[in-house]
């Protein structure tokens, strides 16, 4: 009766499981259980051998040649290499295109007064980046690459920038707003200009340029030499 409790462990051991120490000790001392274990082992080994025999098929005589002919007739490796080269060329083209676009990309100019002021002939036109940048943020982020790219190529200012001293931005903005709305009366400015004429000492006479007259030389070398002497 006590051997029955080891039956499962013995069967599992025959299938490949480890044997617990107490079961192993029992099997060593019990002839019946040792015989059962040997029987189970033979059964499993017979099962494995039968399965191995069922799977022991050999390839057909020309299997290797057939597979070789099939795979070498398809340009698999060659097409793989061609595909790699195509992919590499495409990647290089994309990289070049991105670099080209970055080099030619127009960086947006900083927001300045030019959006508010109307360009006049008297306003200075700067081709360099404007030193005064109207921006509420305290410290604008400087990017080295865009500034370098902008400095290298000639700047074509579509609308000239207007230099406005720092601190007068709001006044200029209000002035421009009044001008655009038509509420600005400039007659008082004209009247004041008439009231304050230019002082007489500051008025300059018109500059007269007289033609230079050159006397002709007598044309003889002796006369010139005598004069030098």
């Amino acid at each position, binding site marked *: 009766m006590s051997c029955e409790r080891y039956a499962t462990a013995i069967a599992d051991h025959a299938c490949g499981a480890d044997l617990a120490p107490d079961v192993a000790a029992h099997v060593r001392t019990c002839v019946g259980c040792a015989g059962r274990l040997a029987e189970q082992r033979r059964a499993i080994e017979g099962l494995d051998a039968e399965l*191995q025999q069922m799977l*022991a098929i050999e390839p057909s005589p020309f299997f290797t040649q057939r597979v070789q002919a099939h795979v070498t007739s398809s340009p698999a490796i060659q097409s793989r290499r061609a595909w790699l080269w195509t992919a590499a060329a495409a990647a290089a083209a994309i990289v070049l295109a991105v670099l080209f676009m970055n080099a030619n990309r127009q960086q947006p100019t900083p927001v300045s007064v030019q959006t508010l002021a109307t360009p006049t002939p008297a306003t200075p036109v700067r081709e360099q980046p404007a030193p005064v940048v109207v921006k509420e943020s305290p410290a604008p982020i400087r990017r080295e690459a865009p500034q370098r790219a902008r400095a290298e190529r000639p700047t074509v200012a579509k609308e000239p920038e207007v230099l406005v001293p720092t601190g007068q931005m709001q006044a200029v903005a209000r002035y421009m707003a009044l001008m655009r709305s038509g509420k600005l009366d400039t007659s008082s400015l004209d009247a004041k200009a008439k009231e304050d004429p230019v002082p007489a000492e500051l008025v300059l006479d018109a500059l007269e340029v007289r033609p230079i007259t050159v006397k002709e030389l007598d044309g003889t070398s002796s006369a010139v030499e005598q004069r030098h002497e």
Partner: protein
Amino acid sequence: MTVEADPRHELEREFEERLKESSDLAIRVAYGVVRQRQDAEEVAQEAFTKAYRSFSTLRDRSAFRAWLVRMTWRLAIDRWRADRRRAVREQTSATLDGDASAEALASASERATRLWHAIDDLPEKLRQTIVLSAIHGYDVREVAQLLDLPEGTVKSRLFLARKGLAQRLQCLVNDTPQR
């Protein structure tokens, strides 16, 4: 001064070597699933074709065999699932016909049929492990390498597969000692 071989020819030469040493392995793995020689050879050929396309990354010998086993098994399972009804019909027909060849006789035997049915009843992971262990008599370590699994996992699966087969083929187990 050494003359360098053409890389493409070198690849093809290596592939030919792998093909010769692994063709029986691929066919047996496929046969363990589809149970038909012709189907097994077609599956093995398909696996070798796929291996040829990726051979530049599979040049390591052990990695190639493991990859080949797994690919062949997947392809065979796909074919078996697609042609399950046809395969069962052909196997039954071969059993009843009693072909004179040794392989047909082995397939026709009742024990083999019952064993195949018992293997079919196993979960796929257990079936793959028991079939691989039966090919060339691979041990746990070799099966673990082929399946890229820990040896403990293979040992556990092998135990469960054997136990499942023994339970399904109880009479077979009882008959075996008299063999």
